[in-house]
Protein backbone atom coordinates (compact mmCIF):
# COMPACT_ATOMS: atom_id res chain seq x y z
CA UNK A 1 0.00 0.00 0.00
CA UNK A 2 1.04 3.63 0.16
CA UNK A 3 4.34 4.16 1.84
CA UNK A 4 3.96 7.76 2.87
CA UNK A 5 1.44 9.75 4.82
CA UNK A 6 -1.46 11.44 3.17
CA UNK A 7 -2.37 14.90 4.38
CA UNK A 8 -5.93 15.15 3.17
CA UNK A 9 -8.56 13.51 0.99
CA UNK A 10 -11.17 15.25 -1.17
CA UNK A 11 -14.06 13.80 -3.12
CA UNK A 12 -15.82 16.04 -5.64
CA UNK A 13 -18.98 15.32 -7.62
CA UNK A 14 -19.48 15.74 -11.35
CA UNK A 15 -20.30 19.43 -11.04
CA UNK A 16 -17.23 20.24 -8.97
CA UNK A 17 -18.93 20.48 -5.59
CA UNK A 18 -17.10 19.09 -2.60
CA UNK A 19 -18.92 16.09 -1.18
CA UNK A 20 -16.30 14.73 1.18
CA UNK A 21 -13.27 16.17 2.87
CA UNK A 22 -11.03 14.57 5.47
CA UNK A 23 -7.72 15.76 6.76
CA UNK A 24 -5.12 13.67 8.53
CA UNK A 25 -2.82 15.55 10.82
CA UNK A 26 -2.29 19.28 11.12
CA UNK A 27 -0.25 19.58 7.94
CA UNK A 28 -3.26 19.14 5.70
CA UNK A 29 -5.85 21.01 7.68
CA UNK A 30 -7.86 23.65 5.84
CA UNK A 31 -11.06 25.24 7.03
CA UNK A 32 -14.43 24.60 5.37
CA UNK A 33 -14.42 27.57 3.00
CA UNK A 34 -10.87 26.92 1.88
CA UNK A 35 -11.59 23.28 1.20
CA UNK A 36 -14.66 24.17 -0.88
CA UNK A 37 -12.64 26.71 -2.83
CA UNK A 38 -9.82 24.23 -3.39
CA UNK A 39 -12.24 21.61 -4.64
CA UNK A 40 -13.88 23.83 -7.24
CA UNK A 41 -10.48 25.19 -8.26
CA UNK A 42 -9.20 21.69 -8.82
CA UNK A 43 -12.32 20.75 -10.76
CA UNK A 44 -11.80 23.66 -13.14
CA UNK A 45 -8.08 22.99 -13.56
CA UNK A 46 -8.78 19.35 -14.29
CA UNK A 47 -11.29 20.31 -16.97
CA UNK A 48 -8.99 22.94 -18.50
CA UNK A 49 -6.08 20.51 -18.66
CA UNK A 50 -8.18 18.21 -20.85
CA UNK A 51 -8.56 21.03 -23.36
CA UNK A 52 -4.96 22.23 -23.17
CA UNK A 53 -3.40 18.86 -23.81
CA UNK A 54 -1.30 18.73 -27.00
CA UNK A 55 -2.08 15.06 -27.52
CA UNK A 56 -5.67 13.98 -28.11
CA UNK A 57 -7.48 11.85 -25.60
CA UNK A 58 -6.24 13.45 -22.41
CA UNK A 59 -8.21 12.38 -19.37
CA UNK A 60 -7.12 15.18 -17.07
CA UNK A 61 -4.46 15.68 -14.42
CA UNK A 62 -3.31 12.56 -12.59
CA UNK A 63 -0.48 13.98 -10.55
CA UNK A 64 0.63 17.42 -9.49
CA UNK A 65 4.05 17.65 -7.89
CA UNK A 66 5.14 20.65 -5.88
CA UNK A 67 8.00 21.35 -3.46
CA UNK A 68 6.20 20.35 -0.30
CA UNK A 69 3.47 18.02 -1.47
CA UNK A 70 2.10 15.78 -4.19
CA UNK A 71 -1.50 15.79 -5.32
CA UNK A 72 -2.80 12.55 -6.82
CA UNK A 73 -6.14 12.54 -8.59
CA UNK A 74 -8.35 9.70 -9.72
CA UNK A 75 -11.40 10.34 -11.88
CA UNK A 76 -14.07 7.69 -12.15
CA UNK A 77 -15.93 7.01 -15.42
CA UNK A 78 -18.84 9.09 -14.15
CA UNK A 79 -16.79 12.20 -13.43
CA UNK A 80 -16.51 11.84 -9.66
CA UNK A 81 -12.98 12.85 -8.66
CA UNK A 82 -11.01 11.50 -5.72
CA UNK A 83 -7.88 13.39 -4.92
CA UNK A 84 -5.39 13.19 -2.11
CA UNK A 85 -2.80 15.71 -1.00
CA UNK A 86 0.18 13.84 0.35
CA UNK A 87 3.90 13.97 1.10
CA UNK A 88 6.34 14.35 -1.76
CA UNK A 89 7.45 11.00 -3.06
CA UNK A 90 4.43 9.08 -1.78
CA UNK A 91 4.11 5.67 -3.38
CA UNK A 92 1.00 3.77 -4.47
CA UNK A 93 -1.45 6.56 -3.77
CA UNK A 94 -3.25 5.64 -7.01
CA UNK A 95 -3.91 2.20 -5.56
CA UNK A 96 -5.17 3.80 -2.36
CA UNK A 97 -7.49 6.08 -4.34
CA UNK A 98 -8.90 3.08 -6.20
CA UNK A 99 -9.58 1.33 -2.87
CA UNK A 100 -11.34 4.46 -1.64
CA UNK A 101 -13.38 4.48 -4.84
CA UNK A 102 -14.42 0.91 -4.06
CA UNK A 103 -15.45 1.93 -0.54
CA UNK A 104 -17.45 4.79 -2.08
CA UNK A 105 -19.33 2.44 -4.41
CA UNK A 106 -20.05 0.06 -1.55
CA UNK A 107 -20.95 2.22 1.43
CA UNK A 108 -22.20 5.38 -0.22
CA UNK A 109 -23.88 4.32 -3.45
CA UNK A 110 -25.59 1.28 -1.91
CA UNK A 111 -26.92 3.35 0.97
CA UNK A 112 -30.62 4.12 0.38
CA UNK A 113 -30.37 7.27 2.52
CA UNK A 114 -27.69 8.90 0.40
CA UNK A 115 -28.79 11.43 -2.19
CA UNK A 116 -26.64 11.54 -5.29
CA UNK A 117 -24.21 14.48 -5.57
CA UNK A 118 -24.90 15.51 -1.96
CA UNK A 119 -22.28 15.64 0.83
CA UNK A 120 -21.45 12.18 2.13
CA UNK A 121 -22.73 11.48 5.62
CA UNK A 122 -22.40 7.72 5.87
CA UNK A 123 -21.07 6.22 9.07
CA UNK A 124 -19.92 3.00 7.40
CA UNK A 125 -17.95 4.92 4.78
CA UNK A 126 -16.13 6.90 7.49
CA UNK A 127 -15.42 3.76 9.52
CA UNK A 128 -14.05 1.76 6.63
CA UNK A 129 -12.06 4.70 5.26
CA UNK A 130 -10.42 5.17 8.68
CA UNK A 131 -9.56 1.47 8.73
CA UNK A 132 -7.96 1.59 5.29
CA UNK A 133 -5.88 4.66 6.14
CA UNK A 134 -4.92 3.13 9.47
CA UNK A 135 -3.75 -0.07 7.83
CA UNK A 136 -1.71 2.08 5.51
CA UNK A 137 -0.09 3.92 8.42
CA UNK A 138 0.75 0.66 10.18
CA UNK A 139 2.34 -0.68 7.02
CA UNK A 140 4.35 2.54 6.77
CA UNK A 141 5.57 2.48 10.35
CA UNK A 142 6.37 -1.18 10.20
CA UNK A 143 8.95 -0.70 7.46
Amino acid sequence: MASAAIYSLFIINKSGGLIYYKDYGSAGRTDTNDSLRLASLWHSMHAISQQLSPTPGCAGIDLLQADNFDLHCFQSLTGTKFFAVCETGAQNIEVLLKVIYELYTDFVLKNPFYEMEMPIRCELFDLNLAQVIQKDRVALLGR
Partner: protein
Amino acid sequence: MIGVGKAKQYANVLDKPLSRGRQEVSLSAFAFLFSEMVQYNQTQVDNIAELERRLEDAGYAVGARVLELLCHREKGNKREIRLLHILGFIHSTVWKVLFGKGADSLEKGTEHEDEYMISEKELLVNRFISIPKDMGAFNCGAFVAGIVRGVLENAGFPAVVTAHFVPIEGQQRPRTTILIKFAEEVLQREARLG
Protein backbone atom coordinates in the same frame (compact mmCIF):
# COMPACT_ATOMS: atom_id res chain seq x y z
CA MET B 1 -27.34 -29.41 -16.59
CA ILE B 2 -26.74 -29.35 -20.32
CA GLY B 3 -24.91 -32.36 -21.73
CA VAL B 4 -25.02 -34.46 -18.58
CA GLY B 5 -26.99 -37.64 -19.04
CA LYS B 6 -30.05 -37.82 -21.18
CA ALA B 7 -32.51 -34.98 -20.58
CA LYS B 8 -35.90 -36.44 -19.71
CA GLN B 9 -38.79 -34.80 -21.50
CA TYR B 10 -41.73 -34.07 -19.24
CA ALA B 11 -45.21 -34.01 -20.72
CA ASN B 12 -46.49 -31.68 -18.05
CA VAL B 13 -44.46 -28.76 -16.79
CA LEU B 14 -45.75 -29.50 -13.29
CA ASP B 15 -43.94 -32.84 -13.33
CA LYS B 16 -40.54 -31.28 -13.91
CA PRO B 17 -38.45 -31.41 -10.77
CA LEU B 18 -37.80 -28.09 -9.07
CA SER B 19 -34.22 -27.27 -9.97
CA ARG B 20 -31.96 -26.01 -7.28
CA GLY B 21 -31.15 -23.07 -9.49
CA ARG B 22 -28.05 -20.94 -9.15
CA GLN B 23 -26.98 -20.98 -5.56
CA GLU B 24 -25.40 -17.57 -5.59
CA VAL B 25 -26.57 -14.10 -6.53
CA SER B 26 -24.37 -11.04 -6.83
CA LEU B 27 -24.33 -9.21 -3.49
CA SER B 28 -23.99 -5.87 -5.24
CA ALA B 29 -27.05 -6.55 -7.37
CA PHE B 30 -29.08 -7.42 -4.29
CA ALA B 31 -27.74 -4.42 -2.36
CA PHE B 32 -28.78 -2.01 -5.12
CA LEU B 33 -32.19 -3.63 -5.48
CA PHE B 34 -32.80 -3.49 -1.73
CA SER B 35 -31.62 0.12 -1.61
CA GLU B 36 -34.10 1.02 -4.36
CA MET B 37 -36.88 -0.78 -2.51
CA VAL B 38 -36.18 1.24 0.65
CA GLN B 39 -36.01 4.47 -1.33
CA TYR B 40 -39.27 3.70 -3.14
CA ASN B 41 -41.06 2.99 0.11
CA GLN B 42 -39.68 6.16 1.63
CA THR B 43 -41.44 8.22 -1.02
CA GLN B 44 -44.75 6.56 -0.23
CA VAL B 45 -44.89 7.08 3.52
CA ASP B 46 -44.97 9.99 5.96
CA ASN B 47 -43.23 8.53 8.96
CA ILE B 48 -40.69 5.95 10.00
CA ALA B 49 -43.09 3.48 11.61
CA GLU B 50 -44.97 3.26 8.33
CA LEU B 51 -41.72 2.63 6.44
CA GLU B 52 -40.82 -0.16 8.82
CA ARG B 53 -44.24 -1.71 8.39
CA ARG B 54 -43.91 -1.63 4.60
CA LEU B 55 -40.51 -3.29 4.66
CA GLU B 56 -41.90 -5.92 7.00
CA ASP B 57 -44.83 -6.59 4.68
CA ALA B 58 -42.43 -7.04 1.78
CA GLY B 59 -40.49 -9.52 3.89
CA TYR B 60 -43.67 -11.34 4.86
CA ALA B 61 -44.36 -12.19 1.23
CA VAL B 62 -40.82 -13.54 0.86
CA GLY B 63 -41.14 -15.60 4.04
CA ALA B 64 -44.35 -17.26 2.95
CA ARG B 65 -42.84 -18.38 -0.33
CA VAL B 66 -39.52 -19.41 1.15
CA LEU B 67 -41.32 -21.67 3.62
CA GLU B 68 -43.12 -23.50 0.81
CA LEU B 69 -40.00 -23.85 -1.28
CA LEU B 70 -37.75 -25.06 1.50
CA CYS B 71 -40.28 -27.50 2.91
CA HIS B 72 -40.39 -29.12 -0.48
CA ARG B 73 -36.74 -28.84 -1.44
CA GLU B 74 -34.82 -29.22 1.79
CA LYS B 75 -37.01 -31.20 4.11
CA GLY B 76 -38.94 -33.57 1.89
CA ASN B 77 -42.33 -32.05 2.68
CA LYS B 78 -42.05 -32.54 6.42
CA ARG B 79 -44.03 -30.09 8.54
CA GLU B 80 -42.67 -28.81 11.82
CA ILE B 81 -45.11 -28.78 14.70
CA ARG B 82 -42.81 -28.06 17.63
CA LEU B 83 -41.65 -24.56 18.47
CA LEU B 84 -37.97 -25.33 18.86
CA HIS B 85 -37.90 -27.24 15.61
CA ILE B 86 -39.38 -24.41 13.57
CA LEU B 87 -37.00 -21.97 15.22
CA GLY B 88 -34.10 -24.26 14.43
CA PHE B 89 -35.32 -24.51 10.86
CA ILE B 90 -35.35 -20.73 10.51
CA HIS B 91 -32.07 -20.22 12.27
CA SER B 92 -30.17 -22.75 10.17
CA THR B 93 -31.91 -23.72 6.91
CA VAL B 94 -33.73 -20.49 6.03
CA TRP B 95 -30.77 -18.32 6.96
CA LYS B 96 -28.38 -20.54 5.05
CA VAL B 97 -30.46 -20.42 1.87
CA LEU B 98 -31.12 -16.68 2.08
CA PHE B 99 -27.88 -15.33 3.48
CA GLY B 100 -25.30 -18.04 2.80
CA LYS B 101 -24.67 -19.03 6.40
CA GLY B 102 -26.57 -19.88 9.57
CA ALA B 103 -27.61 -17.14 12.01
CA ASP B 104 -25.10 -16.33 14.74
CA SER B 105 -27.22 -17.37 17.67
CA LEU B 106 -30.70 -18.34 18.83
CA GLU B 107 -31.64 -17.48 22.39
CA LYS B 108 -34.67 -17.79 24.59
CA GLY B 109 -35.76 -14.59 26.29
CA THR B 110 -35.17 -14.50 30.02
CA GLU B 111 -37.87 -12.05 30.96
CA HIS B 112 -40.82 -13.53 29.11
CA GLU B 113 -41.71 -17.08 28.27
CA ASP B 114 -42.92 -16.23 24.80
CA GLU B 115 -39.84 -14.36 23.55
CA TYR B 116 -37.01 -15.75 21.46
CA MET B 117 -34.15 -13.91 19.81
CA ILE B 118 -32.07 -14.58 16.73
CA SER B 119 -28.88 -12.51 16.78
CA GLU B 120 -26.51 -11.54 14.05
CA LYS B 121 -23.38 -9.46 14.17
CA GLU B 122 -24.58 -7.69 11.04
CA LEU B 123 -27.53 -8.57 8.84
CA LEU B 124 -26.67 -9.02 5.19
CA VAL B 125 -29.30 -6.51 4.15
CA ASN B 126 -27.71 -3.89 6.42
CA ARG B 127 -24.16 -4.42 5.29
CA PHE B 128 -23.88 -1.27 3.19
CA ILE B 129 -26.52 0.82 4.90
CA SER B 130 -25.73 3.65 7.33
CA ILE B 131 -28.83 4.95 9.07
CA PRO B 132 -28.78 8.77 9.38
CA LYS B 133 -28.93 10.06 12.95
CA ASP B 134 -32.31 11.72 12.50
CA MET B 135 -34.00 8.40 11.77
CA GLY B 136 -33.54 7.22 15.30
CA ALA B 137 -34.02 3.53 15.88
CA PHE B 138 -35.09 2.62 12.36
CA ASN B 139 -33.63 -0.65 11.13
CA CYS B 140 -33.79 -1.94 7.57
CA GLY B 141 -33.65 -5.36 9.19
CA ALA B 142 -37.42 -4.96 9.42
CA PHE B 143 -37.37 -6.71 6.06
CA VAL B 144 -35.72 -9.77 7.62
CA ALA B 145 -38.12 -9.57 10.57
CA GLY B 146 -40.91 -9.73 7.98
CA ILE B 147 -39.37 -12.82 6.41
CA VAL B 148 -39.25 -14.57 9.79
CA ARG B 149 -42.85 -13.56 10.51
CA GLY B 150 -43.91 -14.88 7.09
CA VAL B 151 -42.28 -18.25 7.75
CA LEU B 152 -43.68 -18.56 11.27
CA GLU B 153 -47.20 -17.48 10.51
CA ASN B 154 -47.54 -19.74 7.50
CA ALA B 155 -46.14 -22.66 9.47
CA GLY B 156 -48.85 -22.19 12.07
CA PHE B 157 -46.92 -20.23 14.73
CA PRO B 158 -48.34 -16.71 14.74
CA ALA B 159 -45.89 -14.21 16.20
CA VAL B 160 -44.89 -10.57 16.31
CA VAL B 161 -41.37 -10.16 14.98
CA THR B 162 -39.23 -7.04 15.19
CA ALA B 163 -35.61 -6.13 14.46
CA HIS B 164 -33.52 -4.16 16.93
CA PHE B 165 -30.02 -2.80 17.18
CA VAL B 166 -28.32 -3.86 20.39
CA PRO B 167 -25.23 -1.83 21.21
CA ILE B 168 -22.32 -3.91 22.40
CA GLU B 169 -19.66 -2.27 24.49
CA GLY B 170 -16.24 -2.35 22.95
CA GLN B 171 -17.64 -2.44 19.43
CA GLN B 172 -18.51 0.48 17.23
CA ARG B 173 -21.29 -1.24 15.35
CA PRO B 174 -24.25 -2.63 17.27
CA ARG B 175 -25.41 -6.23 16.86
CA THR B 176 -28.83 -6.86 15.36
CA THR B 177 -31.42 -8.94 17.18
CA ILE B 178 -34.60 -10.30 15.65
CA LEU B 179 -37.08 -10.50 18.51
CA ILE B 180 -39.86 -13.06 18.13
CA LYS B 181 -42.87 -12.87 20.42
CA PHE B 182 -45.21 -15.79 19.98
CA ALA B 183 -48.98 -15.55 20.32
CA GLU B 184 -50.66 -17.06 23.35
CA GLU B 185 -52.17 -19.96 21.41
CA VAL B 186 -48.75 -21.16 20.30
CA LEU B 187 -47.53 -21.48 23.88
CA GLN B 188 -50.68 -23.20 24.95
CA ARG B 189 -50.34 -25.69 22.14
CA GLU B 190 -46.71 -26.30 23.04
CA ALA B 191 -47.68 -26.96 26.63
CA ARG B 192 -50.38 -29.41 25.50
CA LEU B 193 -47.96 -31.27 23.26
CA GLY B 194 -45.68 -31.73 26.25
